[in-house]
């Protein structure tokens, strides 16, 4: 009985979390775009922006404008992931580039 109640509480806790993750709103899409944009700014400052990142961001903005918040959020998350990969690459290269240099 105790276990059952505990389970109910858990389900009750999980439902809103799952719902908010699944249903994109204008606000959640906009915040995903803002997060991606911040990461892209960092990538650009490290002289390593990928073309695919910019394309994903363009998709996100277009979807936002068309009111497709789920697509906007998905594209923005993708843009951020790509930007993070390029930032990681640029950071690593700060130490690794010397391996490519000819002396």
């Amino acid at each position, binding site marked *: 009985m105790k276990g059952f109640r505990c389970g109910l509480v858990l389900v009750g806790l999980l439902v809103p979390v799952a719902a908010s993750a699944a249903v994109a709103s204008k606000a959640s899409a906009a915040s995903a775009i803002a997060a991606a944009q911040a990461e892209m700014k960092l990538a*650009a400052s490290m*002289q*390593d*922006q*990928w*073309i*695919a*990142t*910019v394309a994903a961001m363009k998709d996100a903005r277009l979807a936002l404008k068309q009111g497709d918040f789920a697509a906007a959020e998905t594209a923005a998350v993708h843009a951020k992931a*790509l930007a993070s990969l*390029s930032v990681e*690459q*640029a950071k690593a*290269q*700060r130490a*690794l*580039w*010397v391996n*490519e*240099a*000819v*002396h």
Partner: protein
Amino acid sequence: MKLALIVLASLWAAPLAQAASQPDPAADLQGFQGYFLKRFPKVPLAAYVNGPYNFSKSERDQWKQIIEFPPYAFAVADGKTLFDTKFANGKTYASCFPNGGIGIAQTYPMFDAKTGRVVPLGVAINRCRVANGAAKLSLTTGKLADIEAYMTSTSDGKPIDVVVPHDPRALAAYQAGKEYFYSRRGQLNFSCASCHVQAAGMHLRGDVLAPALGLTASFPLYRSSWGDVGTLVRRFIGCNKKVKAEPEAADSTAYRDLAYFMTYMNNGLPIAGPGARP
């Protein structure tokens, strides 16, 4: 014992750290040119200005056909006309350059102590325009490329002579260009060196990859795939895109520094511009 180790380690690390932080362009130049001369013993130093033609007979044959009627001849002629045309204030380009702009292309990119920045020839042409009340031109193609083609033609055969003065800002610019050249970037994770050093002389699809040595000496150049004459910056943009990276702005510090490093590595090689490529 531990202390001794630390002291030893720091003694050992100190000169290393210094060597890493203190750029030495002259030593780099020797190492760079030496690397290619050793790797391709059949290619004499001056021949590197011909880029891919040292490594592909079919491209060389194509080239010989192309230069029978040099496709850049129009650009040189148009460039001379533009160069000699007076600005609204009555002055000409000649007033902006040493020796009236004739036979000086081999000294660019030049470090400008006043602004602390590197000035490639294209940027110098635009500066001259702005100083005389004219608008800037595109740094990649068109009129500016034509003017550059003409000015470069008056330096044909002169040894490249780029100077990195003993100014910490010049050394920093040189070092930044070097780091840009050797750093991997883009979704494909290539550096300029991946293709133009490691894979030099090999085929990327139909293209023979020109070695990094001599890479800047024929610019501006006519490319059949472009259909007109383009500047070095235009090529930078193209090669950035090849690795799926966003290009830098044409007049960015990154590209200026990159051109500075790459052209310095060609010091002593003859200017062979404007050039032509398939």
